[in-house]
């Protein structure tokens, strides 16, 4: 299960060594070793503010003894250093009570290696990302913007896992995360991209789209709070449905952090237009992986399909607690999605604006917070181009407004999705998401009175 590159065997050797050493003392042992070489160029006022680099080896251990569950994260490279850190665990292991989320680690199943996650061009660019940063900047400047800010991140990651059940696997991959915010006077636009592969045209598109939204209007328009039809850009879709995917974790359900506490599988939770898939096998998206943190094979699966709740995301522990099978989404303790794919619709993007007719186009958002996870009550604030549309025409920018709604309302009120996919990852979208624009009706939009 190897994608290429050098020093590949060291992380797997370390993981296996740790399992060998710890196995006599515990019922279950899993050792996860992640080694990365990452460079990030941070841009500020159209020039680099800092170039950051990380060369790390991080070790995670899951240890179980008499159904007691212990986890350890350590930044160490040598087995003896890791084992020394387990002394603390050793001291407390017998004093801890049984975990209700304990389940034996799974027996190894056939994990089929994924190919296409490693791009040598990313590794080559690590030591000189300048041409790629310049390409993004120039593309935005070509739209007549005043200045840009953003980041370009390039990374090579080796992930190795060994378990006391005999699983042993390793993956090497690369990823690129790029986003840019472009400013023109009081107006701004933002775009983002995430992939396992380095494609200069995709980076140019980030600059282009950010520049286009920064210059799409030079007019501010008045706006009254109320119910609006809204088009949400892929950035907004990635942010909001990322929160829904978090709540689809069975761990979130068990700990009281989920709207899905109120639903059962098979319940209608959204418009039939909405399908949301967890896609670890899409090797172009940055969190692609063939096996989860317990060594279970991953697989693509619907979370919501045609509006119906199909799956919660499980590791062995949550699955045992709920009487189902793991879905290959471990995360020790906290099960989570790998990559998200939001099913596309039939609309071309300009047709979606015609369909909107009157309402708002929200191209970016941030700071999504919930009043109550069980009810899914949330609000989020728009930033960058937030456009008022009347009779299918963009009248101008309304400034920073707030979507204040329930996730169930938002998802049930979806009436259309565009047909072109974008691969989004940025500061506010941490689970890589492939999606289009979404049109939803009757969504509550607010702003301050004073």
């Amino acid at each position, binding site marked *: 299960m190897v994608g290429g590159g050098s020093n590949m065997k060291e992380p797997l050797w370390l993981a296996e060594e740790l399992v060998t050493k710890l196995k006599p003392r515990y019922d279950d042992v899993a050792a996860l070793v992640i080694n990365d070489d990452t460079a990030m160029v941070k841009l*500020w006022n159209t020039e680099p503010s800092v170039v950051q*680099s990380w060369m790390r080896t991080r070790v995670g251990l899951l240890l179980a003894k008499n159904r007691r569950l212990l986890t350890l994260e350590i930044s160490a490279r040598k087995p003896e250093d890791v084992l020394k850190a387990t002394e603390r665990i050793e001291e407390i292991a017998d004093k801890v009570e049984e*975990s209700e989320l304990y389940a034996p680690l799974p027996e190894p199943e056939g994990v089929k290696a994924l190919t296409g996650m490693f791009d040598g061009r990313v590794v080559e660019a690590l030591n000189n990302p300048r041409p790629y940063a310049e390409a993004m900047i120039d593309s935005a400047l070509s739209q007549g913007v005043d200045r840009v800010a953003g980041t370009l991140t390039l990374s090579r990651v080796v992930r190795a896992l060994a378990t006391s059940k005999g699983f042993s696997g390793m993956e090497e991959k690369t990823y690129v995360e790029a986003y840019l915010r472009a400013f023109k006077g009081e107006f701004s636009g933002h775009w983002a991209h995430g992939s396992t592969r380095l494609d200069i045209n995709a980076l140019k598109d980030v600059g282009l789209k950010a520049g286009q939204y920064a210059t799409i209007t030079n007019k501010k328009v008045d706006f009254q709070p109320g119910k609006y039809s809204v088009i949400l850009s892929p950035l907004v879709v990635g942010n909001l449905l990322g929160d829904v995917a978090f709540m689809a974790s069975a761990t979130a359900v068990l700990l009281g952090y989920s709207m899905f506490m109120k639903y059962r599988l098979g319940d209608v939770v959204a418009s039939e237009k909405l399908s949301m898939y967890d896609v670890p096998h899409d090797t172009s998206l940055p969190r692609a992986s063939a096996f989860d943190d317990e060594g279970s094979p991953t697989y693509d699966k619907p979370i919501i399909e045609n509006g119906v709740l199909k799956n919660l995301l499980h590791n062995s522990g949550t699955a045992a607690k709920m009487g189902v099978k793991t879905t290959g989404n471990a995360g020790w303790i906290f099960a989570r999605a790998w990559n998200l794919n939001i099913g596309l619709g039939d609309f071309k993007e300009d047709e979606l604006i015609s369909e909107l007719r009157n309402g708002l186009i929200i191209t970016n958002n941030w700071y999504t917070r919930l009043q109550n996870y069980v009810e899914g009550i949330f609000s989020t604030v728009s930033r960058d181009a937030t456009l008022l549309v009347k009779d299918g025409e963009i009248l101008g920018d309304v400034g920073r407004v707030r979507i204040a709604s329930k996730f169930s309302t938002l998802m049930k009120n979806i009436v259309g999705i565009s047909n072109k996919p974008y691969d989004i990852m940025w500061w506010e979208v941490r689970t890589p998401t492939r999606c289009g624009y979404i049109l939803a009706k009757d969504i509550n939009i607010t702003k301050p009175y*004073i």
Partner: protein
Amino acid sequence: MSVDEGVLSKAVDEGLSLGAKYVEVRYQKDYVDGVTLRNDKVVSVGVERTEGVGVRVLVDGSLGFASTNDLSLEGVLKAVRVAYERAKALAPLRRKPIEFSEERVGRASYGVVPKVKLEDLSVEERIKLGKEIYDVVLKTALKVKVPAYMFELTTHDQEKLIVTSEGAYVRSYVPRLYVSLNVVLLEPQKGTLQRRLEYAGSGGVEQLKTWNISEDVAGEIKNLEKVLLEGVEPPKDAVDVVVGSEIVGLLVHESAGHPMEADRILGREAAQAGESYVKPNMIGVYRVGNSLATVVEDPTIPGSNGFYLYDDEGVPARPRYLYKEGLLNEPLHNRHTAKIFGVNSNAAARSMDYASEPIIRMSNTYFKPGNMTFEELLEGVAVGVYIKSYMEWNIDDRRWNQRYVGLEAYMIRNGELAEPVRNPVLEITTQGFYSNIVAVDKNLKFYPGTCGKGEPAQGVPVWFGGPNVRISKVRLGVIA
């Protein structure tokens, strides 16, 4: 401290010999022990051991940062070379060189001495505390169900050693204790209500006695049960609103602390946490509030969650007045922004861990209290609302338009607290809040938080606080 200090000195020398104008090498160790309970059952016990070195270099006016957890001389020197080479490669894209202000940096060693060491809090005691609090919740919630309860307790030992090419040598040790709770209350006809509570500070186990969590939680649950069962909609007309200290604390963090971070003012965080409504020429001139509006930022408060005496550039810490009697007064600076503003750094550079670059952060931010009692604050309010706590909040990326959704709240009638109010929404601009303050009580209280900023995002421990504050004639909203 498990790093050879000679390695750090040699790393500084290596950076200088390569041609860097400035070299800063920071060793940082973060040891965290945590336990998580769901209801009265243990979910897991976790241990984190993070340790490594972060290096910054200034080369040809370009700033490079690299980090490694390979603490051998070879590993740390490699990090210096990577920081140098990658910064140099990007230097041609800079139009103006990055420079740092001149500072008298520290040569000091300091530490927080706990009365009871964190390691003396056994795992059994941690679990017992989580169960005791759950028991209190169940015994107090008599008329509603408790479908979810989660308890987390973590202890965090943090050590740093900062060595720079300009002579800084600062060694520090800060232990911190943190407890968080998530409770959901359910009444089938009325729906659910969710409360997250946090307790945190620097020091040792003795803090648990001060927090008295069981008693605090009993009061919370009793009141929230009443809100869930009897809460009414907030009034539709504009009324006087007494904003509770918990919300005032968060509000000053969001709308005074963040917009007064000089890196945001200059645009360094533009594509992430955003910019600021504050522009450099507004400092000392622009009036954001009335004379009651004073907000202080102070890393030196003993026992605080954001405690430090020297920042991560080695500059000595001191209190700063962000807003002073309604005027924008003093932004938070590091050495880079101080140079641009033509002032000295006020020591706001902090790093989450060894793998994080030091950036401008808050520490402990609070609204300056007044002289009134809480009862005096309510006097004269014919019809109003007191909002004591919140769950949902957010603010726009210029720190102007913000929203706080009340959790525990009450009507005020003729100067007295009356029936509970459910989910009142305070949606207000920064100037709208600070200009409409009519009275401030003397009950300063601090609340913990983990402030997020930077790329990759860094969460650092902070306190935010304030007294109860009365604002005049505000229209409250309702949730959709």
